[in-house]
């Protein structure tokens, strides 16, 4: 089973983990990732813009691709939008599989794709100045691992 949500409200990482444990059936391994807003360089807030519709379909397509590549028993992705402050959760990705290698790889694959393909954009506020985050070459390099 796959659950994919894009939402303004916060999520509970523990509740997402518990749901994965429940949905995972005979899973032996659950790998998860939580992304949080960092307060680096005086960041006061971050606002996430997104492309409704395309966001959901891009993420669903990559979840489908992950299911083709790895044996996945359950998968959950939650991505927040709107205004967030340092310490806030941004994203949860969790994968339940029989084996740990598959669970870790699928979770990393999904995170790399969220960073480089899913239509989200971050606007950072520091004091009075607002800047759109520029795509990192590092993220592009990271996603290239999965191309085959």
């Amino acid at each position, binding site marked *: 089973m796959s659950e994919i949500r894009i939402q303004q409200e916060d999520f509970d990482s523990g509740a997402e983990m518990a749901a994965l444990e429940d949905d995972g059936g005979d899973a032996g391994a659950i790998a998860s990732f939580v*992304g949080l807003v960092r307060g680096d360089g005086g960041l006061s807030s971050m606002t*996430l*813009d*997104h*492309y409704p*519709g*395309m966001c959901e*379909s*891009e993420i669903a397509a990559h979840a489908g691709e992950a299911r083709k590549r790895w044996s996945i028993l359950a998968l959950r992705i939650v*991505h927040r939008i709107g205004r967030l402050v340092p310490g806030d959760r*941004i*994203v949860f990705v969790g994968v339940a599989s029989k084996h740990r290698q598959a669970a870790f790889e699928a979770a990393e694959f999904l*995170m790399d794709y*969220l*960073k*480089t*393909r*899913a*239509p*989200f*954009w*971050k*606007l950072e506020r520091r004091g009075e100045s607002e800047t*759109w*985050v*520029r*795509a*990192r070459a590092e993220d592009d390099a990271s996603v290239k691992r999965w191309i085959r």
Partner: protein
Amino acid sequence: MKILYFAWVKQKIGKAEETVDMPASVTNVATLIDFLRKRGTGYEEAFKNPALIRVAVNQQHTDFNAIVHPGDEVAFFPPVTGG
């Protein structure tokens, strides 16, 4: 044709979406950009450096060679920065 803008492309153009009648000169994304650039200074500013712009046609990532049709939904935005 429905056109959507996101992130700083939206800010420069000053709107999130609009519906335009596709002129005969527009056949693909590149010629659509040429057409849009002439619509005002916000557009000119947004599309000044096309290397910074990404495009999706009908919610699929594509490139400037992609063919466009009158009923399409075309979105312009900077490289994505999610996660």
